[in-house]
């Protein structure tokens, strides 16, 4: 059973990663990051059930809390960027270069 969950998690993570690398829309990129986080969560929970130890579930909660905080800040940043630049394409946001 556990291997199925792990497979699912791997598929979700890959989708997230590919989306993160290929998509230009900041909102979609953001969603892909969330997807990867949840793939990781799924792994935590799967192993937690497999070994019967609750530590993994605790870790999953931590990740969720961090993700929630991240969404709050990340979304507001994206909204601000959209307001000032009328675009949410990450390829246009290259001001912070060396």
């Amino acid at each position, binding site marked *: 059973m556990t291997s199925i969950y792990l497979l699912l998690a791997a598929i979700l993570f890959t989708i997230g990663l590919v989306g*993160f*690398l290929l998509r230009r829309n900041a909102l979609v990129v953001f969603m892909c990051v969330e997807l990867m986080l949840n793939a990781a969560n799924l792994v935590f929970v799967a192993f937690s059930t497999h070994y019967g130890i609750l530590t993994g579930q605790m870790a999953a909660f931590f990740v969720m809390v961090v993700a929630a905080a991240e969404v709050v800040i990340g979304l507001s940043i994206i909204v601000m960027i959209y307001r000032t630049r009328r675009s949410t394409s990450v*390829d246009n*946001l290259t001001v912070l270069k*060396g």
Partner: protein
Amino acid sequence: MLETLTPTIASGLFDYAWLLIAIPALMAALLLIIGRATNRFGHWLATCAPIASFVLALILFVDLLGADPSARAVELTVYTWASAGAWQIDVGLLIDPLSILFVLLITGVGAIIHIYSLGYMATDPNRRRFFAYLNLFIAAMLILVLADSYVVLFIGWEGVGLASYLLISFWQSRPSAAAAGKKAFLYNRVGDLGLLMAIFTLLAFFGSTKFAVVEPLAGELSPAWATFLGFMLLLAACGKSAQVPLQGWLLDAMEGPTPVSALIHAATMVTAGVYLVVRSGAFFEQSTAASLAVAIVGTVTLLVGAWIGCAQDDIKKVLAGSTMSQIGYMMLAAGIGPIGWAFAIFHLLTHGFFKANMFLGAGSVMHAMSDDTDMRHFGALRRAMPITFVTFGIGYLAIIGFPFLSGFYSKDHIIEAAFESNTALGVLALIGAGVTAFYMTRLIIMTFFGSKRWAKGVHPHEAPVAMWIPLVVLALGSLIGGVALNGWIGGWLSGVGADSPGHASWLPQFNWLTWVTLLVVALGVLLGWWLYVKRPVSAKTPVPLPIGTAIGRQLTGDAVVSTVVSRPGLALGRGVALLDQRVIDPLTDAIGHVSTALGSGLRRLENGNVRTYGVTMAIGVVLMGLALILVWLV
């Protein structure tokens, strides 16, 4: 001879001996710190300071005079300066027959010079600063002579160096004055090195530098170390007293205001070297080589100084050469040994009077001649300024050793003592006396006699009251100083009463040497008269210079110093600068260039494109994962 007395602890009036130093020092601080608010009356306050010190010194002197000869040294520990391990360095004062004479000379002649300066500097915009520095000079010199240890002496020694620097370059907007001050300071530093080495030697051997502690132990030094100590002290004395080979600064020091020249040459500064040698007599007694070196340096300097005196046309520089020469006599006496020490101090005191007298007289002449110092532009001034002429004339007779004037007694003693110790030194000292007579005659004839060679628009006039009263007082000192001190000073300094070696009466003992000396002096005067009265003096310096004059101008040693020290020093500096520019700079620059290149290469990675960062991160994670798996497999 000078005997080291065991000092008694101060009591009564001697508890207040620190006031001698504190009064002028505080006054200097007051004038410098309060500043412009004291512009109007500061010079009066400053003039009162040395007078107050002089009165106090006089009281202490009378007190010592009444004391038993063996109880004439009093020490006063003011406070403990530093204490480290076995070393304890106290700031203390020693009032003994030697130091009280110096204090009287410094404050007495110093006070007279202050009064003179009231007239001389009356219109100078920086008068307050000038008087503050004068007081600082007096205070530093008093610390120097009143110190009870070499360390405290060194404070005064450096203070004198500082004050002389400030005063020589007093007219600091003149580049030549600024340079002269710097030059004096640098020459003095060389001497300071000698004194420092001597202090370190004493600390290393005895753990103390107190005169009363180290002098009785002088015999315990090994001959080699005693010689080393003697030479280091001699180096120090050479720097401060402008003895060969460190004489170069003295002539340039004439850039300072004339009262400063008088102060440096008569009461403070150059006398410090003689004081140091006499005070350290116990160590020179341990080393024949060092004593002989002192005598030789003195003899060489007295001849070199006299030659310089003959070669200059600048009235102040002639007097400066003559100071070198007279200090040379003192060093010669100090080098002869215990018998000469009292003579050195005797000559120092009489010289203090007649040299201050002549310097202030020269200042008065300059005042009358619109600050011209070239004697070729003087002439026939005796009618225009009779008081200056008469007082200067007395100083002149005193310095050439005219019978019964002060220089006659003191110089005669030195020549006699030199003959007793070494015929060669004696003959050279005798020649020096003749040359002295010659150049002083030349000076007085070119200035006060002959035809008027005045520049246009110059109307000589007698100096104001504040300036001629000091001249009269000093002239009186030059007149009677020898008679008054002759029968007394040897006994006073030896601490044993009147049965000292030498001359217990005010009447000089006319022996064959006295007559020979007088004959040589008369020859010098005649030569001067013949060369400068018989033949008219030109208002212009002859071109080319006569060979003797040309050599005399070189004897300040400037050319030698610049060849031996300045030029190699400059070359070394240029070499180091070149090394810095050609080797060190490129090396450090290379480090900078490499990191700049690295940085601009790495900069390309930071292109601001979020997705590039993402790819980099993903590849990194994959690589790390692979590495972990690899480690796990192995």
